[in-house]
């Protein structure tokens, strides 16, 4: 075991390999407040990557309804139960990570789902906490609540899958931090399936290998966002590259949302993987639940988001989400316009905070007609 620094925990922790951060780290922000659980992301992924034999049950990308939804069944609940002493002191995690609480002789505290755990992938869809009674009136925070959690591989800084692989067949790409299972070398021992707390590695019984989300690296290599981002009609997602906290730049959308505004938070940071998909927590759900999932910054993030109406930079960036296929690495706002540019500094997108209203002349002299909204 090595000692590595995990900024999400505010401390060093144990990990199987020494710290070796990539040149840059693929990262993403998902705004749960915009997610509509349409599953377009799921289908974009599935029709692109996992429509083969042996992959039927696999959802590299899935969307589950919290709190009653989980895919595979109870994946998070089971691990939360197994992991003791999940305590924060301010922003510092004082409990144990899944690496630190690994049983003797194992590298990671984990469990392996049974085949039946992958059944009912949309269990809990739209099921709310607490029973609704006749005459309910809800205002924020909602007494009855659920929210949608879209999940892909977190391309963690400290992947549990990678650390658990006995063959060293899982690696992190230096150029973008994307974590891959080498399909040539994997022999299907499923240690990674067991180790990943998010259960985002899947065993393929036809190929005898384990597979996972590849962050659509063939697209990322071309400067284009992954399938589940481009197809996201809730426009909840933005892909980019995240700096280390001390190197954060205000014009980098990822840095701005994660490090500067701290409005986007990791999923289950207490597990210790330093996951790189960041979630804007749902503003209508209870803080206690959000904190359990997204860590101690949940309350502040919810407040920041609710104040976006007074924060044009934040509102502007959130309106930029999903408007371009390109990976936007820089953004700026001027007045009602927000623009994004790519790695080379070329502007790839410019949109207004408010979609324009057009009032056309009632009489169209050229075509000799009178325009009307109900013709």
């Amino acid at each position, binding site marked *: 075991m090595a000692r590595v620094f995990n900024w999400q925990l505010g401390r060093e922790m144990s990990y199987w390999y020494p710290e070796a951060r990539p040149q840059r780290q693929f990262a993403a922000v998902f705004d749960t407040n915009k997610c509509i659980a349409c599953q377009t992301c*799921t289908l974009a992924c599935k029709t692109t990557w996992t429509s083969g034999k042996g992959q039927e049950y696999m959802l590299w990308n899935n969307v589950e309804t919290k709190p009653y939804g989980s895919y595979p069944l109870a994946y998070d609940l089971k691990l939360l139960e197994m992991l003791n002493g999940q305590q924060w002191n301010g922003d510092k995690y004082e409990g144990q990570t899944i690496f630190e609480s690994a049983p003797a002789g194992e590298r990671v505290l984990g469990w392996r789902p049974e085949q039946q755990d992958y*059944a009912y992938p949309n269990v*809990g869809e739209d099921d*709310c906490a607490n029973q609704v009674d006749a005459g309910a009136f809800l205002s924020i925070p909602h007494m009855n609540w659920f929210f949608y959690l879209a999940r892909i591989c977190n391309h963690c800084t400290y992947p549990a899958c990678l650390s658990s692989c006995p063959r060293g067949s899982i690696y992190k790409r230096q150029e973008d931090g994307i974590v891959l299972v080498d399909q040539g070398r994997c*022999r299907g021992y499923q240690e990674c399936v067991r180790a990943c707390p998010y259960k985002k590695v899947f065993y393929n019984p036809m190929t005898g290998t384990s597979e996972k989300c590849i962050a659509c690296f063939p697209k990322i290599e071309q400067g284009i966002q992954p399938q589940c981002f*481009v197809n996201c009609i809730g426009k909840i997602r933005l892909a980019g590259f995240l700096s280390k906290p001390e190197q954060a730049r205000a014009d980098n959308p990822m840095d701005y949302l994660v490090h500067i505004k701290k409005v986007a938070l990791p999923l289950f940071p207490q597990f210790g993987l330093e996951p790189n998909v960041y979630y804007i927590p749902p503003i209508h759900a209870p803080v206690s639940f959000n904190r*359990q999932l997204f860590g101690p910054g949940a309350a502040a993030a919810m407040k920041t988001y609710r104040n976006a109406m007074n924060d044009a930079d934040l509102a502007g960036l959130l309106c930029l989400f999903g408007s371009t296929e390109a990976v936007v690495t820089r953004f700026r706002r001027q007045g009602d316009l927000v623009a994004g540019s790519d790695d080379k500094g070329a502007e790839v997108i410019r949109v207004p905070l408010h*979609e324009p209203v057009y009032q056309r002349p009632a009489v169209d002299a050229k075509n000799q007609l009178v*325009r009307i*909204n109900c013709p």
Partner: protein
Amino acid sequence: MKNGMERRDFLGMIGAAGFGGLVASTREAWGLGAVTNPLGAYPDRGWERVYRDLWKYDSTYTFTCAPNDTHNCILNAYVRNGVVVRIGPSMKYGEATDLLGNKVTHRWDPRVCQKGLALTRRFYGDRRVMGCMIRKGFKEWHDAGFPREGNGLPPRKYYNRGRDEWLRITHDEGAKIAAAVLKNIAETYSGAEGKRRLTEQHYDPVTIDATEGAGVRTMKFRGGMPLLGITRVFGMYRLANSMALLDAKVRGVGPDQALGAKGFDNYSWHTDLPPGHPMVSGQQTVEFDLHAVEHCQTLIVWGMNWITTKMPDAHWLTEARIKGTKVVVIACEYSATASKGDDVIVVRPGTTPALALGMCNVILREKLYDAAYVNQWTDLPVLVRMDTLKYLRAKDVFGGEVAQLRNTTVLAKDAKEPPPIQHTRSFVSEAMRMEWGDFVWWDRTANAPKPLTRDMVGKNSNVQNPLLDDAVEVTLADGKKVRCRPAFDLVSEYAAHFDPKTTEEITWAPAAAMEDLARHIAKQPGKTLIALGMGPNQFFNSDNKDRDTMLLAALTGNVGKIAGNIGSYAGNYRVALFNGAPQWINENPFDIEADAGKSARPRQYWKPESAHYYNHEDHPLRVGNKLLTGKTHIPAPTKSMWFANANSILGNVKWHFNTVVNVLPRIEMVAVNEWWWSASCEWADIVFGVDAWFELKHPDMTASVTNPFLVTFPRTPMKRVFNTIGDIEVQALVSAKLAELTGDLRFNDYWKFVREGRTDVHLQRILDHSTNTKGYRFLDLEAKAKQGIPALMNSRTSPKCVGYDQVTDSIPWYTKSGRLEFYREEDEFIAAGENLPVHREPVDSTFYEPNVIVSPKHEALRPDGPEKYGVRRDDLSCETRCGRNVALTWAETKQTKHPLMKDGFKFIFHTPKYRHGSHTTPIDTDMIAVLFGPFGDLYRHDKRSPFVTEGYVDINPTDAQEIGVDDGDYVWIDPDPEDRPFRGWQKDKRNMEFARLLCRARYYPGTPRGVTRMWFNMYSATPGSVEGQRARADGLARNPRTGYQAMFRSGSHQSATRGWLKPTWMTDSLVHKAMFGQGLRKGFEPDIHCPTGAPREAFVKISKAEPGGIGARGLWRPAAMGIRPKYESEAMKRYLGGGFIKQKGEA
């Protein structure tokens, strides 16, 4: 595990060796290159090309996906080796422009959804209709030369629909047979012999008269939502129009006497039309493009599950909210959209009229209304006579003639209305103008009556300081004195019954929440958008709902403004966006224009009809001695049905099982154009396999009522995968066969451009004659669409905002008074007790006496009671109930009970639409289905499951416990036994086997007690699916002969409702705008004033059928695991409370 090594051996080995040891052992054991730290470096990454190869494609092209969801997405198809391997958004919507160069932004991108992406598996799917299919018995009937019984009916032996064998024939043979059948039906049911036969078949005499002696009038054609394919789908009506040629041949009449076939309605058939909108505004529907929400201060989402049914436009809602728009959700559950609301009010289903009245009452009582708007735009100041209950007419008070109108052209008796594109203002016939007269308001300043004309709206209104809240005695020109009250006063008195406490009791909405919301929207007049959905529209009181919610909107100045408007969202419909469509559908078949550069000369021979009568056992509504269907609405008997692009008219029809068991046997031909074997195909006689969207060879066009785009279906380069032809080619082909049969070559000429591959000629004619598209060249639009770019409709505004023209330019609405009318003076409304915008209890989905008018005694409410129609007051049978006008106060109503409650019925059963299907597209695609609901399982561990998912009912967990049902159990759902699932079920075991609803139950904490829900979108059981489930080893509910895949073991969501007809939907007197253009009409018009049905009306009994565990043993697994509502393990309880995390220093 592979390689003979057990996990524990392996762990033991690496545990002993430690980190360094692992690297060494890896090298030793498997002979691989060392990987010292895969976080930092990895030796051989050449394998990554596997995924790069998977991503590669040879080419892309675009096609348009347009199920009836209003979105119309131009999608990119990615092609490899000639096969579409995946689909994605075009990302080019942000480049759309209009004729003036106005441009939208890329915030419109992406436009796509999961259903569109899944089409790859559907276009190549095993249920594609791969050619032309004909039912064996039907072919035998044709081959035998159409034998008939004495009464004209074909012998039953030929009609084993749903169970028969199918034969594959060519489209050419199919068209030939279909043409021959049409001709035979026309011959059989024309003239005196036809009348005799129909009489002996026991059709209602008024429906026989409605054939006008022409057999072609018994043929019903339908292009399902024609806006979705303005030539290929709407072409079914062109086909109907051409039946005039057949009639001319059969009856030997000339072009002046010939009649066309009948065409079924669409928007109203789908229960999408808000029937009360035309009752208030005189036109189809008030609504706004959804991105208008960017500009409002408050958004009320009311009975609309916006984020599941308007998915690509959901971001406008969530983004508006980010920028400060307050979102209020009113729903009968904690819906998906509720989770995006700032405030949520959970109400009792079917009580929207009462809730709106409750809010109006607050506003009226506290005088918070927008007085200027009320005075300028509503009939509320208009006086109503208490002797006749009619509006007081200016002529009766002041004498003289009707006023000359500036804003309305009065057409002399024989004058013809010009085509829509030339309309600059309203047209009205002289007769209607004389009938309307002018109106009167009472000027308090002058203390005298004042005349009011249609012109006096908006800035031209002279109404100032009107008498609103008191009665007045008016002296008529003849000296007679008559007591009058302003509509405002009548409405206020009625609304006063809906005080906050009463409203809370009726609707369940907390009084304080309702009052706060009313005050909130009144405080910022013109700044609230109110989006109503399909939910409230699918109840019997739908028109009450519209009139009451529009009253609320009008009182707060929220009709016709970009940031303040009301909308009803269900379906896509405004074919008037292409008001030049008559160029195509109504081209005169006796006078065909063969020059591509010239315009057609339309003449409409076909006649529209509401499909709701077919859905109502093929007859109008009679209650006691009273015919309650207006004469302009009367349907003809149905002898053939031909539809395209639609599963709703048969496979998913309301009261489906009654339709297939009791109605279909009298229909002699059911022909379907389809590319996917739907439930409708299961019940058809002939199915023409047609091209799917991704292989269209004829271009087409569509538009939307929720976004500003004019979207082209470009011709595609994709080769046809199966033996299909275009929809429009089917129509041309059957016409060619009719030409052969009749010798009339005009049948051929009518489709000349289609046969020549020049459908664009017709599309260009439509563009040239449509108000908001003239100036576009179709080929330019198509070229843009091939790049993924739509065009913008050149509407008056973008976002489109119905009412903007009226409010901005002070032009009249399409009503008699030119104002939004909340009082309805017509006889039918007075008889129904609905001259005021009242609240009726739902007709079935209520715990109380159904269909009661909730009202205390009111001077202006004088409904015709049951006795007047010769029925007993206590007769609550389903049919009688529809025309039952009984008023009770709320105090009285709440003492009553639904008549079935004594028999253990206690659940409202409603059937909304959901995110996983656009209607029934494409819910039976495996990848979509498995995510549809909680019971998806691709490996079908439980072989009882009909498919990889299955239909289920959502039930309140406490209710479920009370009836002994566990989460995940199978349950029986039984509706009113009087006539559902089908009339006569008690003695018909054979049909009951597939008709009785059997489904899973899900504990759903989001619904209040007594309210159950089943999604509308799933495929029903058929005789074949039940047979398949029994016969197949894997238990799939799949028809062995057709491959049809059901998602129920038996029954469907349509097992519990019926065809409901409401008298106020069927008047001969309601004035409204015509479908196309600015002309005014009255009485029936399809998709504007006609029945809409009430498919969310059902009151059911639920009982346990089988345990939910695999193989009917024990609990359904998630419940057993303790992760389901009411079954939570201790850990799950802790999880729900966020209890796994501690923050130091906090308790």
